[in-house]
């Protein structure tokens, strides 16, 4: 089998697996069918836990034992939290945080 065909099949498999994961909850609990209360409960509390999980997920490649010890991430994150608590403006907080982080990794912690 040529490597192009194999790569094509790989893309197909990956796309199918990803779609399967995303569709699974909706297939398991279709509209109009009664679902266990615990699922409804999980649906309510999960977003808070998942966003927490995603924040940590973003830092998975950061090493605190080697230079720059996660400092750019820490400083930029603290900046985002502070600015957001003060102004509650998503665009200002995110773009401001990106600017701070880019300055840090490009100029300060090189």
């Amino acid at each position, binding site marked *: 089998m040529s490597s192009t065909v194999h790569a094509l*099949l790989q893309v197909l498999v990956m796309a199918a697996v990803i779609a399967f994961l995303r569709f699974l*909850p909706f297939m398991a609990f279709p509209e109009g069918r009664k679902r266990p209360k615990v699922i409804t409960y999980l649906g309510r509390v999960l977003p808070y836990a998942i966003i927490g999980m995603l924040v940590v997920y973003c830092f998975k490649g950061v090493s605190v034992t080697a230079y720059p010890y996660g400092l750019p991430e820490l400083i930029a994150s603290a900046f985002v939290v502070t600015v957001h608590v003060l102004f509650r403006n998503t665009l200002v907080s995110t773009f401001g945080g990106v600017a701070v982080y880019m300055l840090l990794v490009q100029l300060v912690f090189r």
Partner: protein
Amino acid sequence: MTKKTFKRAFHDSLPILAGYLALGIGYGVLLQSKGYSFWWAILMSVTMFAGSGQYAGVDFMASGASLLTTAFMTLIINARHFFYGFSLLDKYKGAGALKPYMIFGLTDETYSLVCSAKPEEGVDQKKYFFFLTALNHSYWITGCVSGAVLGMFLPFDSKGIDFAMTALFIVIMVEQWLSSKQHLPAVLGVVTTAVCLVVFGAEYFIIPAMALIAAELVLLRRRLDPERPEVNGDE
């Protein structure tokens, strides 16, 4: 109404525009460097629409991994997406013909925007979610393809721009924190995932973390699920 809905969605999706262009371009460059042309960028960004999944996918393709390995690794890397639907069963209810595409495009970033969306006068929620998904998808495809076509000639140093995603998740977390009196689920999410990251390592931590979070939440149900909607409610 549709116009206003679209405008709202576009405005809210701007952080994703920055992040997806950056991540997409990085991906396109990587793809190109392994000898895959921009056709692959189009194919993968259209059909997979997954950041980490596609980055890892390039490695599987370049190393000629078997289909079984490819499937299994993709399952691990994207397992977190399995969680998202559970909290959107009601939000996406009644979206009709738009729904399959909305589910197909349920990335981390789209999910986080959908979670933090507040109903607004003159904005059709279902269409709003659909526009968010489609806009994000279009940014992603644009990023991936431009990276593959002209990534080498990028006019400026974009190092660090992918922090847009991290910043967005932090902002959403702060918003949730400020608007909810019950902080246990958020704390559980952070602490459990951090512990799993240390224990299981960066490659395999997410599935144990998901399982533990779900188990902890179920165990704490009595405490978290009294009839106090303001405590848990995102609806």
